[in-house]
């Protein structure tokens, strides 16, 4: 048994690490689906901070906000994956670098 108290700061540091990994992955990866998964990772890190603050401040509103974040993330995934499907129908490229139609 480890005699170590887990405080809210531990969760905040973990959430910051998860958010950073997601952000770096979004910048580094070229596959649009994997980039989308990295966005989900960042959303999850934010959810973790919401729940941590709900616990630290003893206020359940943070959990309600996580509820809304989950609903918006579900809607975002549905529309985003539909956009990806529509893009892939027109061009077979699997990377974000192929989508340069708007480049001047």
């Amino acid at each position, binding site marked *: *048994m*480890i005699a*170590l*108290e*887990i*405080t*809210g700061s*531990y*969760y*905040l*540091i*973990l959430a*910051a*690490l*998860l*958010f*950073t*990994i*997601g*952000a*770096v*992955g979004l910048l*580094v*990866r*070229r*596959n649009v*689906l*994997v980039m989308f*998964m*990295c966005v*989900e*990772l960042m959303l*999850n890190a934010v*959810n973790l901070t919401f729940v941590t603050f*709900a*616990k*630290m*401040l*003893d206020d*359940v*509103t943070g*959990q*309600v906000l*996580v509820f*809304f974040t989950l609903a918006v*993330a*579900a*809607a*975002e995934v*549905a*529309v985003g*994956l*539909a*956009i*990806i*499907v*529509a893009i*892939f*129908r027109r061009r077979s490229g699997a*990377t974000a670098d192929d989508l340069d139609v708007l480049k001047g």
Partner: protein
Amino acid sequence: MTAVLFFLFAAAALAGALGVVLSRNPVHSALWLVLTLLSVAVFFLLQSAQLVAAVQVIVYAGAIVVLFLFVIMLLGVDREETLSDPIKLQRPAAIVLGVLMLGEVLVLAGHEWATGAQTAHGVPIHGLMDTGTDPGNNIERVARVLFTDFLWPFQLTAALLVVAVIGAIVLARRSGERPEDPGPGIPAAERARPGSGSGERPEADAETSEGTS
């Protein structure tokens, strides 16, 4: 007990996140993402947010990742990604920016003016059934806030989900760019005019996309 669980699942969450970023195969990325999502659900449980943990498992691991896998399989993009870096110095710059952002977030998380949690900062997070000062269990507390203070955003969320479903169907339906065989049940007149009446018959469109894809 709580510390053991925390460090175990923190390692799992970080490994899953790194796996999402570092996997060459999108299918593997999706499976690593499941590991991270379930670990975060465990953290929700450790912080006595049972409802949110259940919703996390059901919505994220159950629906969103499955949707990702469906799209990966549908598009057939489960190939290995090229290792080349098309934009020069992008990866080093991304890692430097990531380290800077990590430091910034950590500084913000440690400051009271950013978090407002000055008194609770050193308070240990106790186990599963610690409900704090409010009466009732977690679901009752969340429901009380959700259906009083957040009733209007809740209704807006319902509208948002309906709009998202219709938008996804409109975006993902086959728009007749290529001479493809449309599913049965679409009249020839509508088949000849792609894009028209797209929002009017969502049920028929849903059946069609299910049937053809």
